[in-house]
């Protein structure tokens, strides 16, 4: 009797937990999603009849539909849609009670949370997880490439490795980590209590781990992971094994996430700035994210379209890329690069913003040419849409298109050059504080300029034809994405670490991290220029023996680069757990996020600040950026003045 009571008690507890939003209900959602997919494909296939489909149940069809249905059902279970369902059911609107705001235990990071600061940390940590996975995959690739003809992995697995490496680091690391830092910092910087659409913000985060796990999960698909690079060119992607579907679907989820976040950033920046925060008083990080978000909203739908084409071709035998029935494979490249070229600016502009913050603060000088910095961001946005076909110089498209594309590609280096020279001019005669964030900013200036120069070389059609699909391309892309974006990310993470966690990182380890990263990065990727010029093709699991010496060198250097990341990881984890407490404004910065406690209070500001001046007036006597408005007692202490030296 007692036994049965306990049983039913457990059952009701279980039932109650299944009704609560959370991972348990999410798991149930996944099961329901898969069952739904099996049912749907069975109904469709059996109603269409044997003439179209040989079997009424097909595991590939179920898998394809499950890849859409199961994640969505998981999100429903997790509670991502609860409020909207409530609204859709026609119930009374309920006032926001802020119960999903703030994080009080670590568990609060594992639920739907609407606090932009929690979401920012969720984004950042999730992105760094995928950085480590992507980096490990790179180590595996370098192990294979250490010697010609080695059999560490087979050729097909190798193709899967470089494809997943690139996709993870682009879609799950660089793009979202910027969104994460932006999420944390932007509302604070513009004096807003939160983002404009907090629930959308939460949902857009939770799409990301799904996309990442889907890409990793493709390794377990029959036929192996998607193996045609992160570009997934048709018609190869039309006929590849089912792992390709994982890629196309994951890109849809990651793309949806980035569109939602961009929309949220734009609305937040336009409608929620503090009084007095005119556009030209915004910190350049806000400008950078504004420009990036414009790019995302306009360009990302194109990659969604390109992957829709692939999915329709694969799943329903449409003929977008079937040349035998009039399809056009070149069209895939146009649609894909119309997103993916702007995407390289999506992966770079927020980094420009971070560098502007760090350099102005650490050089104790106003940023040189603030307005030109903002305008050059917008110029990059505009020009970014006019250069996509420079990725296709050898694709066989009409030859004359190459000429305007080469010209616009060379022109787009101009606004980027303006930024480089502005930073250099900011450094000129500044009082440089060479701590970790600043070291990464200076390292970025060096390596990104090198990557930019090889980019201008690649804009030249004859040269591009010579090095197309060689290691020169690999060197260039890593100089701009690792030496460019990742350096800015490290600078940003170190710079805002005290604000995000309330603790200081270990400066000595930070310096170690910078110097090992900087040295091993150059040792790894600089020789690839030479390999490319000598004609070693990229994306191959083995190579001619004449390249053996440099490849062994690169592999050894890349392991050093991998180890340098462990220094960073150790520093972050131990400092977060037990680092010394940070004061609210350790860098003596003027921007608003540093004027609240570290970490910031749950609702950011007790009173909204009023902005009365520019954000970078360092070293200008008496310059004021923001005032915490007006209670008579605090009138004197509330003014954020540049401390006089």
């Amino acid at each position, binding site marked *: 009797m007692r036994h049965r009571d306990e049983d039913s008690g457990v059952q009701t507890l279980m039932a109650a937990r299944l009704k609560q939003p959370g991972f348990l209900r999410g798991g149930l959602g996944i099961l329901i999603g898969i069952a739904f997919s099996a049912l749907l494909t069975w109904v469709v296939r059996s109603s269409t009849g044997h003439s179209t489909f040989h079997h009424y149940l097909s595991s590939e069809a179920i898998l394809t539909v499950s890849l859409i249905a199961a994640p969505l059902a998981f999100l429903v279970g997790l509670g991502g849609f609860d409020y909207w369902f409530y*609204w*859709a*059911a*026609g119930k*009374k609107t309920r*006032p*926001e*009670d*802020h119960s999903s705001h703030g994080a009080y235990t670590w568990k609060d990071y594992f639920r739907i949370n609407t606090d932009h600061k929690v979401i920012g940390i969720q984004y950042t940590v999730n992105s760094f997880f995928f950085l480590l996975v992507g980096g490990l995959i790179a180590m595996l690739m370098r192990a294979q490439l250490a010697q010609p003809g080695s059999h560490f992995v087979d050729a097909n697995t190798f193709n899967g490795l470089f494809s997943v490496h690139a996709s993870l680091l682009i879609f799950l690391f660089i793009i979202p980590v910027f969104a994460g830092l932006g999420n944390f910092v932007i509302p604070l910087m513009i*004096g*807003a*209590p*939160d983002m*404009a*659409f907090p629930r959308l913000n939460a949902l857009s985060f939770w799409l990301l781990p799904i996309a990442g796990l889907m890409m990793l999960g493709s390794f377990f698909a029959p036929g192996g992971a998607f193996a045609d690079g992160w570009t997934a060119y048709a018609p190869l992607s039309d006929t590849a094994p089912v792992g390709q579907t994982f890629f196309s679907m994951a890109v849809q989820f990651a793309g949806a996430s980035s*569109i939602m976040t961009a*929309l*949220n950033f*734009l*609305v937040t920046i*336009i*409608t*929620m*700035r*503090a*009084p*007095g*925060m005119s556009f030209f008083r915004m910190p350049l990080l806000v400008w950078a994210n504004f420009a990036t978000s414009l790019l995302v*909203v*306009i*360009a*990302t*739908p*194109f990659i*969604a*379209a390109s992957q*829709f*084409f692939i999915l*329709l071709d694969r799943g*329903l*035998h*449409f*003929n*977008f890329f*079937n040349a035998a*029935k*009039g*399809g*056009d494979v*070149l*069209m895939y490249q*146009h*649609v894909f690069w*119309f997103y993916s070229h702007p995407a390289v600016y999506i992966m770079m502009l927020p980094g420009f913003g971070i560098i502007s913050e760090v350099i102005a603060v650490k050089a104790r000088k106003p940023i040189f040419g603030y307005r030109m910095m903002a305008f050059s961001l917008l110029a990059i946005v505009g020009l970014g849409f006019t250069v996509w076909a420079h990725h296709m110089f050898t694709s066989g498209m009409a030859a004359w298109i190459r000429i305007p594309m080469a010209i616009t590609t060379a022109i787009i280096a101009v606004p980027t050059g303006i930024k480089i020279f502005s930073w250099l001019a900011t450094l000129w005669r500044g009082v440089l504080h060479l701590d970790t964030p600043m070291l990464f900013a200076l390292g970025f200036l060096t390596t990104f300029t090198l990557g930019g120069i090889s980019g201008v070389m690649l804009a030249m059609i004859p040269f591009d034809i010579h090095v197309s699909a060689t290691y020169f391309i690999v060197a260039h892309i890593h100089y701009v994405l690792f030496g460019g974006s990742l350096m800015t990310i490290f600078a940003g993470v170190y710079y805002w670490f005290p604000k995000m966690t309330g603790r200081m990182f270990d400066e000595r380890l930070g310096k170690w991290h910078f110097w090992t990263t900087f040295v091993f990065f150059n040792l790894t990727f600089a020789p690839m220029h030479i390999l490319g010029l000598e004609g070693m093709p990229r994306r191959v699991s083995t190579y001619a023996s004449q390249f053996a010496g440099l490849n062994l060198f690169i592999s050894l250097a890349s392991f050093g680069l991998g180890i340098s990341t462990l220094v960073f990881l150790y520093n972050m984890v131990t400092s977060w757990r037990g680092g010394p407490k940070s004061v609210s404004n350790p860098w003596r910065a003027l921007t608003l996020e540093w004027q609240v406690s570290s970490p910031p209070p749950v*609702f*950011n*500001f*007790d*009173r*909204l600040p009023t902005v009365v001046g520019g954000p970078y007036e360092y070293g200008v006597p008496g310059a004021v950026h923001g005032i915490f408005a007006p209670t008579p007692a605090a009138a004197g202490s509330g003014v954020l003045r540049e401390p006089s030296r």
Partner: protein
Amino acid sequence: MEAASIAHAGGHAHDEHHGPPEAHRSSRVEPQLLGMLLFIISEIMVFGGFFTAYFFIRVAQGDPWPAPGTNLPVEVAGMNTAILVSSSFTIHWAEQCIKKNNRFGFKAGMLLTFLLGCSFLFIQINEYANIGFAPQDGAQQTVFFSLTGLHGAHVFIGLLLLLFVTIRAFRGHYSPEEHRGVEVPGIYWHFVDVMWLVVYFTVYIL
């Protein structure tokens, strides 16, 4: 600067568990409206991707359109266009009614819009069933089905939004002061209509 603010109901009423301070409103455009407009921009770009496929497969290749041996039901689709366009007027009427607190007109307008949208989708599906070719037949057929199908998917989403608004209309929600929940889905519906005009013109008429 205007001191208008985003309504954070609850929270800030009591000071001890205070919510966030009211956000300063730095633009005359409402956040929800701006969000919907930006969303529509990205939707237009999705259509842009599909129109790129249309351009390459229909225009650049220069083959006759529609593919030899196939016919597009221009008249039926024209009727359907009229139905969809008229629904834009009925939803506009519904919005005007709720602004003047004419509840009957509001409910009738929403219901009418929803039914017109449903009949558009019904006729479209019927057209698919009787059109005599399939997307698997060739690239041109693929383009026809994917463009009209993408639009159909948008009609379906729009219909869901309209359904929610209609249900709330019949339950007595919305008022002359608070009708943003009608306006924002209304903008989306207008977008779906205008997009159909573009699709109809390029796919059926040209």
